[in-house]
């Protein structure tokens, strides 16, 4: 058997081993999260190594505690979900409203400073988010925006706009210019062309972008912690969950139920739109 045959067989087997390991390593923590959230804390403490729980053992009391209102002894996560939805949706809509014309300009129009835009965006990532947090913390304290969801939305827009412009630009450059010229001949203004010709054609990219921004805003923790921690009524789910872990009287299974509540919407969105998202994110990357 020569080297090529031997290696082909070896890697043919190894490939499946790697795939199996990958699936276990990535999915196990999520399985464990769900498992713990439906087991009573006593059985977890008694048998921490059990990786299976029959339906007889299942409980929903953890979820009742997480989602129940504060007045009824729960943690009031329903309200937090509302806050997070509001923040994430507003950030998504506003980011797209701002980045769509921006990316159109970068992809199609010749203007002064066009080539410098990328440097500006890259520079944003050179500075740690925590560095931005210091002056924003100070300004928001002064303006009374600290503790408000509005302040948080503005920060999320700024955090996601560079990637959003970049993703949309990559897609817009693939739309033929001739379509726009045809629209111009038909008497469309530039803004009309953008709305009636470009937007429908770029729908998949816009959708992928929206999901991306929504996920970032839904998952974000640092700024929520810095700005909202003193105002319990405005907490997001991430922040509420992190604060929950500080409480000694909260059992770990309740914490896991909270984690499931936080993760589930993202997982659903992700699996429903995986192809759209991954193609949107890596558009242009395959060109080297």
């Amino acid at each position, binding site marked *: 058997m*020569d080297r*090529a045959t031997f*290696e082909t067989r070896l890697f043919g087997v190894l*490939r499946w081993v790697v*795939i199996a390991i*990958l*699936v276990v390593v*990535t*999915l196990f*923590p*999520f399985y*464990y*999260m769900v498992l713990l959230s439906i087991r009573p804390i006593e059985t*977890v*403490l008694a048998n*921490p190594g059990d990786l299976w729980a029959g339906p007889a053992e299942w409980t929903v009391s953890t979820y009742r505690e997480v989602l129940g209102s504060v007045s009824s002894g729960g943690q009031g996560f329903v309200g937090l979900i509302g806050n997070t939805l509001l923040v994430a949706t507003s950030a998504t809509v506003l980011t797209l*409203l*701002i*980045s769509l*014309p*921006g990316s159109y*300009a970068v992809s199609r*129009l010749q*203007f*002064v*400073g066009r*080539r410098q835009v990328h440097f*500006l965006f890259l520079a*944003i*990532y050179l*500075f*740690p988010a*925590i560095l*931005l947090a*210091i*002056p*924003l*913390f*100070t300004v928001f*304290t002064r303006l009374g925006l600290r503790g408000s969801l509005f302040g948080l939305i*503005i*920060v999320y827009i*700024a955090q996601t706009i560079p990637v959003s*412009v970049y993703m949309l630009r990559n897609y817009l450059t693939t739309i033929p210019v001739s379509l726009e010229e045809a629209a111009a001949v038909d008497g469309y203004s530039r803004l009309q062309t953008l709305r009636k010709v470009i937007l429908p054609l770029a729908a998949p990219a816009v959708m992928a972008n929206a999901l991306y921004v929504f996920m970032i805003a839904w*998952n974000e923790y*640092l700024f929520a912690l810095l700005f909202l921690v003193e105002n319990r009524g405005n907490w997001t*789910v991430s922040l509420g*969950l*992190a604060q929950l872990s500080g409480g000694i009287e909260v059992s*770990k299974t309740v914490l*896991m139920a909270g984690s499931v509540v936080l*993760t589930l919407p*993202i*997982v659903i969105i*992700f*699996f429903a739109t*995986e192809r759209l998202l*991954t193609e949107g994110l890596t558009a242009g*990357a395959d060109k*080297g």
Partner: protein
Amino acid sequence: MVATEQRPAAPQRRRRPGRQLTRAQRENRAGLAYLSPTFLVVLVVVVVPILWTILLAFQRLRLINIRRSGLFGDFTLRNFEYVFTSPGFWSSLWTTLVYTIGGTAFSIIFGLIAALALRKRFPGRTLVRASVLLPYVAPVVAVTFVWEIMLSPQFGVTNDWGQRFLGWDRPIAFLSQREYTLWGVDVPLALITVIVFEAWRYFPFAFLFILARLQAVPRDLEEAAVVDGAAPTQLFRHILLPQLGAVIALLSVLRFIMTFNKFDDVWLLTGGGAGTQVASVRVYEFLTSRLDIGAAAAQGLVLAAALIVLLALYLKFFAPRVEEEA
């Protein structure tokens, strides 16, 4: 931006000499107008705060007196003096570097392996690919909590199985033990654990980009090599790897920057304890527990400066090679 104003309009736009100027001008105006909302947000929420941080770093400011103080106060270098001489500064910079290099390298290596394994089609590939991406898209708070509980010495599955099947004589506190003696060598246990977490959470990012690039590699090259009897390792070394050079270099820079500035992962896993105090956690502690805005800004600037120096070194030594490949 000022420097480009003398630059002539793009030549391909010059069609009719008479109308060329007004048309270019109109396009210029439209371009700036369309970009202005983006620019405004970035300016107000990113650029101005960064510039302001630089000012803050040179003033002795505490959160209590921030309401009364103006933009320009008494400038001093005392914050930097304080930051450089406070205990743990150099060790935290070192920790940040180890954490960043480890997290970057492992996430890219695992991402590459995963991309190679999932390259060819097989039944259920879409589903496997989607689940591999889960660690990257899931909320950081939720995944750090699962890891914390999995690794917990009291009720975590890792320690239970380790003691039952691997013969560990006592539970290992992965996230709160600074040093662990393994075969007579002291290893920084908590730091390694957060690096492993970083690799787990971000290898999907590398995977995604490498897989996209792999699928764009022309098939005929590889087929020709196979006909010539090349083994898979030779194929990888001589055909795939040269094609992947540019994307791996790009990923290295991206992941290095992001990991270097990372805060939430370490903060949520260890709170910066047990030898995992990376520089961004220090900034946060200056800001929130000591309410010392000046010192926090100075520490943050030192972090950004260190990153810029490291990137400049990287670009100086690696950039020409990258350009050749790209």
